[in-house]
């Protein structure tokens, strides 16, 4: 029985990966929730928006690497991130101009906008595959680990190692900075307040002289930044593949809905709930339990509740339970 080793094993295999994944999901879910709050539809193209922003960032990273620029221990992609965000902003403003604005003017039903976003999803998906190809791209460079498992073991003399990847550290720091900036913007600035007013009550906001087109434009700009950052962090942590990003749509939506669509705090909480439950339920607990329990109780099997391929199932079971018992999400979301 060795609780310290058990905790280190738990941190290494569950806590650290789940915190990183949760931050990525939270940023993605914030984008979904912002669109839902202001534009009032579920954007099916969000996964592919993330893929597009990431793709632009990767192309810029390659260009920088070709020029011999690097950030030392940090990945070069951080330097290329502003380019990716700018590219994604341009794309979203273009799709809004070319596609969504028409339906907004018509005051089309939300479900029509969802179908429209399916069309945008197809186009973005094709576009990304067209430009960068459907394969796997790795673009992380610089130092690989902040804490190395072997060095950790040598330094502490423990049996279990703890590894923290640089990308996981960057993910957490970036997510905190971005979320703080977003909440400051929404809560303290005039534009942010006008956006919240518009989200709460469109007609009243219009009466008090808020320009709806400006609110919508700023929403798209913020969403572009959030989606690109989320996508780049996910890609740095794992790898970039267009199809994987399309599939990210599912956990991202689950996070946003579990937290309550339209509620930014809920999106963040939802992201972590989904990430932690996916990782804990698909993790084989043999190692942790082996340390934590007395020897006589040591499990013989892997003690894995479900195989890793069922991770989507986990997020959706949680989603369904929340929807059935608290239809507006854990934090009160809005309903259109």
């Amino acid at each position, binding site marked *: 029985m060795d609780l310290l080793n058990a905790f280190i094993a738990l941190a290494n295999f569950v806590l650290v990966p789940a915190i990183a994944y949760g931050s990525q999901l939270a940023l993605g879910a914030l984008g979904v929730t912002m669109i839902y709050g202001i534009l009032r*539809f*579920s954007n099916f193209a969000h996964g592919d928006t993330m893929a597009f922003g990431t793709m632009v960032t990767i192309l810029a990273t390659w260009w920088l690497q070709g020029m011999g620029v690097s950030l030392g221990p940090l990945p070069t992609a951080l330097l290329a991130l502003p380019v990716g965000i700018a590219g994604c902003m341009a794309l979203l403003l273009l799709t809004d101009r070319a*596609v969504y604005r*028409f339906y907004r003017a018509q005051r089309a039903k*939300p*479900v*029509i906008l*969802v*179908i*429209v976003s*399916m*069309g*945008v*999803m*197809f*186009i*973005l*998906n*094709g*576009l990304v*595959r*067209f*430009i960068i*190809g*459907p394969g796997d791209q790795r673009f992380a460079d610089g130092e690989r680990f902040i804490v190395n498992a072997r060095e950790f073991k040598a330094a502490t003399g423990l049996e279990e190692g703890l590894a923290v990847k640089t990308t996981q550290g960057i993910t957490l720091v970036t997510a905190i900075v971005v979320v703080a900036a977003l909440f400051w913007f929404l809560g303290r600035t005039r534009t942010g307040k006008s956006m919240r007013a518009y989200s709460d009550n469109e007609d009243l906001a219009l009466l008090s002289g808020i320009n709806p087109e400006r609110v919508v434009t700023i929403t798209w700009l913020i969403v572009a930044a959030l989606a690109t950052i989320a996508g780049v962090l996910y890609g740095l942590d794992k790898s970039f593949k267009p*199809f994987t990003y*399309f*599939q990210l*749509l*599912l956990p991202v*939506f*689950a996070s946003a*809905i579990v937290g309550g669509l339209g509620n930014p705090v809920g999106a963040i909480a939802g992201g972590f709930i989904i990430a932690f439950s996916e990782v804990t339920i698909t993790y084989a607990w043999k190692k942790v339990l082996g340390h934590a329990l007395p020897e006589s109780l040591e499990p013989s099997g892997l003690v894995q*509740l479900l*195989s890793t*391929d*069922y991770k*989507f*199932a986990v*997020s*959706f079971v949680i*989603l*369904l339970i929340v*929807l*059935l018992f608290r*239809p507006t999400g854990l934090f009160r979301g809005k*309903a259109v």
Partner: protein
Amino acid sequence: MIDNPRTPALFALVAGLILLTGFVQSWNTALLILNMGLISAIMSMGVNLQWGFAGLFNVGVMGFVALGGLAAVLVAMPPTTEAWSAGGAQVLAGLLSGAAVITLAAVIRKRMAPSRRRAVALVAVLVGGFFAYRAIFDPGVEAIEAVNPAGTGYLGGLGLPVLLAWPVGGLLAAGAAWIIGKTALGLRSDYLAIATLGIAEIILAVLKNEDWLSRGVKNVSGIPRPLPYEIDLQNDPGFTARAAEIGLDPVTASSLYIKLGYAGLFAVVLVLLLWLAQRALNSPWGRMMRAIRDNETAAEAMGKDVTARHLQVFILGSALCGIAGAMMTTLDGQLIPTSYQPLRFTFLIWVMVIVGGSGNNLGAVLGGFLIWFLWVQVEPIGHALMQLVTAPMADGSALKAHLLDSAAHMRLLTMGLILLLVLRFSPRGLIPEK
């Protein structure tokens, strides 16, 4: 039945396109397009039933199609007797115990008053039940998967004629739809969409992981056919003699004969289902469904049971997708779980319905054929286009090679563009609802 003069013209156009493929490319390609077009038309009728008739937003089509495919395996493959004796009973007992746990939990939830004690009892039953289920279920699965893993390693099917799998596929999909509908149909439209999207992924995860059921990612191939094999036809002197009379070599003749046979079978199913759907649309039931779609509150005030009707139409539409899925797996002769992709099996079907005209069965059928034709043909067209564009570029330039390689991805782009254009300029589709 046909009261829009555009309808026959549009169908003639699609027929012409397929015939053109036959003359320009090959009759094999044309028949392949026709066969998958027939199947796509059934899937798109299923979605039309849900969306066009009742306004239900189901983006889990892929899951129901995959369940249909599973039915083909379960019905037509020969049973693996060794696996059955090794762990068949054990697995069945495991599944029954799982069902018993869920039933018990449901009973507790219904019988006990809402309280802390009920919550504790529910959690205890579910958690304890899960471990009990795994304890019974897992050894059976291991025993089954250990039986000749390279060749079988699964329970096999019932060894019945594969045509039976078509209705069974529909039933399987209907059963799944009943469970899903019971839980998710009360949700708002876009929540329902996300829920169905997730459920389709869950169904696929089950197909990929439960090796004892359908060999998972090891795939099942060699599913028996309703028609003879080409090689048998080629060895049949009577057939080769007749082929020579028409002036065809035996290989081409046998392949065309089989494809035509499938086309005939599929066409019978499509016509039957189309007739039923048209009858339903024009019956009092169809009018009621549209009334519910257009104004739920008013329909409810008139005494219509909206939830029950939604459940009913959700099950019917999903069953159509299941039938089509079983037909598709029969045509392919194999079940490959990794080949099910949401873009191809869910969202493309939606493009078919929207482009064809939601709320109109003929529109959905037309959309099925037309969009499938484009899905297949955009790739060679895109390739030709790229060749034209890149012709002036120097051979061996990286950009030229990249552009030529990427032509394959044009189809996604095109589908999105078509969907957006139709939604913008003809939102009711090519053949609008009356």
